[in-house]
């Protein structure tokens, strides 16, 4: 039986190498570009298309381009490509607008501070994220405001009193947050009554025009109410009372200090916002929009989730109205309609109006982004916080928001990208942002040639693209980092 087979192989035959057109670059090309006749046809057509597009762009931007010159004569030649000397001559204006040349160092410092605050913020490995965020969201805007405008704001005594009265009114309600409703009401009764009276007098003085007397009375009442609340807190040895008191003192001190700093004369020359322009304005509008929209968006998102119908429907209406209309109409509204609804005599410059419009507009979008994060937090987190007896704001601040905000970082970056692109619309109310100043520069008689606009818009597109593309890559990176495997 065992000899019936003539030949039995005792070992495996050696493996043959795969065919040469299946491995290496040839294999890759065969399987990705020429796997069958349809694919080959597609590759040839696409390759031809690509060849046409690339050679045209290269020829325009490099081979036929004009590289040197001082005015339009260099570029207004037959069959010229891009007019690069135009970009060179105008570039600084595209960055700073009409900001006085000898004052540009102020804008430079702002750019540096922004980069210095933003880069460590974006790197997950850098420590002290809280201080970093505080710098970016609080200190940096204040510094930039003073540096760019020149500071020395004419804040009146009454504006200090107004802010102080507001802080006092908050202080009057502090005992409620610490002792709970029942005991808090009992302790803070007098303070709350005083504050209520103060608010009433304030509003009454508007209708009947008490003038300074009404405001003064109301401020006095508010201060008395706040003092009463503070006395209640300092006299108790309750640690929660002390913690809340500290927070209030930091906020109050910070606000008053910020107002004082804004009032100080640093000897900086005043630069009107109408002189700002270019990338500076684009960044100011986009960053103000996003900084203002974060707190507003959080409040709106929480309000939308509220069980109280009036709070909920107010937030829903607010969000849906602003999301339902184009930014252009919001800008027009801020530009032509807003002044009508403010007390006679109040007047904002164009930039402030654009900032108000973008802040409102982007807060509605931000609210929806944050709502997405809130909805992604498992119900159990809320229930666990409630089971521990945490009041609403503590539950939100300590448990829910830290988790929710972390998951929506990519969403926040994405809404920043669209806000950044949308800043180009401020041109319709007459601001010279990056795009508008490049448009205006292309029409400059000194440089006008058939290729000047194309060169200008090409540069603008490149600048916007670099900003937006890098941000979108960053958002993808964060998304990838956050996606730690328990995605629902």
């Amino acid at each position: 039986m065992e000899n019936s087979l003539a030949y039995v192989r005792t070992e495996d035959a050696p493996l043959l190498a795969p065919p040469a057109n299946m491995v290496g670059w040839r294999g890759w090309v065969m399987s990705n570009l020429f796997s069958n006749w349809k694919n080959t046809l597609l590759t040839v057509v696409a390759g031809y298309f690509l060849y046409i597009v690339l050679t045209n762009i290269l020829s325009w931007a490099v081979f036929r381009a004009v590289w040197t010159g001082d005015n339009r004569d260099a570029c207004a030649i037959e069959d010229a490509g891009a007019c690069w000397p135009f970009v060179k001559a105008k570039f600084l204006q595209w960055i700073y607008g009409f900001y006085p040349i000898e004052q540009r160092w102020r804008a430079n410092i702002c750019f540096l501070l922004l980069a210095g605050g933003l880069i460590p913020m974006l790197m997950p490995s850098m420590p002290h994220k809280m201080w970093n965020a505080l710098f970016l969201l609080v200190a940096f805007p204040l510094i930039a405001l003073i540096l760019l405008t020149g500071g020395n704001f004419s804040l009146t005594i009454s504006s200090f009193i107004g802010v102080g009265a507001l802080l006092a009114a908050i202080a009057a309600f502090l005992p409620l947050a610490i002792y709970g409703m029942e005991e808090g009401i009992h302790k803070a009764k007098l303070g709350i009554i005083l504050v209520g009276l103060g608010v009433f007098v304030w509003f009454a003085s508007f209708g009947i025009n008490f003038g300074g007397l009404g405001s003064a009375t109301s401020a006095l009442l508010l201060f008395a109410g706040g003092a009463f609340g503070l006395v209640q807190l300092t006299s108790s040895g309750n640690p929660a009372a002390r913690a809340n008191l500290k927070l209030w003192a930091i906020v109050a001190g910070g606000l008053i200090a910020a107002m004082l700093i804004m009032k100080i004369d640093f000897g900086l020359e005043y630069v009107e916002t109408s002189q700002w322009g270019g990338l500076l304005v684009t960044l100011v509008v986009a960053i103000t929009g996003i900084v203002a929209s974060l707190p507003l968006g959080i409040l709106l998102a929480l309000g939308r989730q509220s069980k109280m119908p009036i709070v909920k429907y107010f937030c829903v209406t607010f969000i849906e109205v602003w999301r339902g209309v184009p930014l252009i109409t919001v800008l027009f509204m801020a530009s032509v309609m807003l002044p009508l609804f403010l007390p006679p005599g109040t007047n904002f410059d164009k930039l402030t109006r654009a900032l108000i419009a973008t802040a409102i507009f982007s807060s509605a979008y931000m609210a929806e982004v944050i709502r997405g994060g809130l909805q992604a937090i498992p119900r159990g987190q809320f229930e666990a916080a409630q089971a521990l007896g945490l009041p609403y704001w503590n539950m939100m601040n300590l448990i829910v928001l830290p988790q929710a905000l972390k998951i929506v970082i990519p969403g926040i970056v994405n809404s920043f990208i669209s806000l950044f692109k949308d800043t180009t619309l401020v041109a319709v109310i007459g601001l010279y942002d990056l795009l508008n100043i490049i448009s205006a520069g292309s029409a400059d008689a000194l440089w006008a040639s058939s290729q000047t606009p194309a060169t200008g818009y090409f540069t603008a597109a490149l600048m916007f693209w670099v900003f937006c593309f890098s941000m979108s890559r960053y958002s993808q990176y964060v998304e990838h980092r956050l996606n730690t495997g328990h995605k629902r």
Partner: protein
Amino acid sequence: MSAVDNTQEPTVSFWNDPKTRSLALQALMIVVLLLVGYYLFSNAAINLAKLNKTFGYEFWPRKAGFDLSQTPIEYTSDSSYGRAIIVGFLNTLMIAVLGIMLATLIGFSVGIMRLSKNWLIAKIAMVYIETVRNIPLLLQLIVWYKVVLGPLPDNKQALNFGNVFYLSKKGLNLPSPIFGAGAWMAIVGLIIGIVGALVIRRWAISRQMTTGQMFPHLSLGILIVVLSPFAGLLVAGWPMTFDYPVAGTFGFRGGATVLPEFLAMLIGISVYTGSFIAEIVRSGIQAVSHGQTEAANALGIRAGLTTRLVIIPQALRIIIPPLASQFLNLTKNSSLGIVIGYPELVYAGGTVLNQTGKAIEIVLIWMIVYLSLSLLTSAFMNWFNSRVKLVER
């Protein structure tokens, strides 16, 4: 802290009752909102009185005195302000509807190209998406208008496409159809075609249910619906002629003209929105688990049918909600027409605003129109979404 004081009575006191609290808070909110509203409106009243203005739409029937370049309904500078705004609204609708159609077409094609097995095609689609998405729409519109369409030759040297289409810096001239008597037969033909396609579909499905034999009812149905109006016309003795544009000394006579502003708007807005739709389509298709394809393969379903019957229906469910919001964005972005001079709602309203100074009234019209367009689109998309939604147990 009394909040966790467990020696307290279990009965909830008046102040600690969440109901009382929320009522008090909401009452406070109403009071504050009313006060703020009163404050704003009293300011507006004072300001308007100071400027000698009143609130009202009495300007609506007054003579506008300005021209609009594109008028879907009859409009001259003698027409009223109201009619100017209506013309603007119709122009907005026109760009929105055509833009949505073109953007969807571009988006689906590029989204599928992005998933192509051909490396070059996939990369070209990717470069298109990443370039167009990251450049502001306004910049793209201006480039289409000023850099692409602007340098086109004048009327006399218009680019001639077979004596039928002419492209110049004044726009695109194309033949316009003229319908004679009996043209209504086209509509009759279309209705018969649709009914016929539906009947064939029913028959094909019932035959497949009983015998398992398949019939290409979808492609045949589309063919029938497309051809039926022409069949109707043929039956009526072809009562349709075309009015061809003829080059004259001062521009073209006859035919229809598509304004360069409209062309720039349509191309720009569709290319831009198309890049977003492409990403939505790609992620929607990729989100359908690969197991579905494998299961279909295991059942022996052909590749084309797998895509049509297994992948697409599931991907559509993921694609539709973000697609709806892209359609909304496109509609809202049509307001950028004001920058390149396309006479849409914001352009017409803005001109009226400049002439009459009726800021509040015009802004209100804008808000109401865009809000209702948004609500209508989302209502329609919700209805559509509920039709394709997975019916859960």
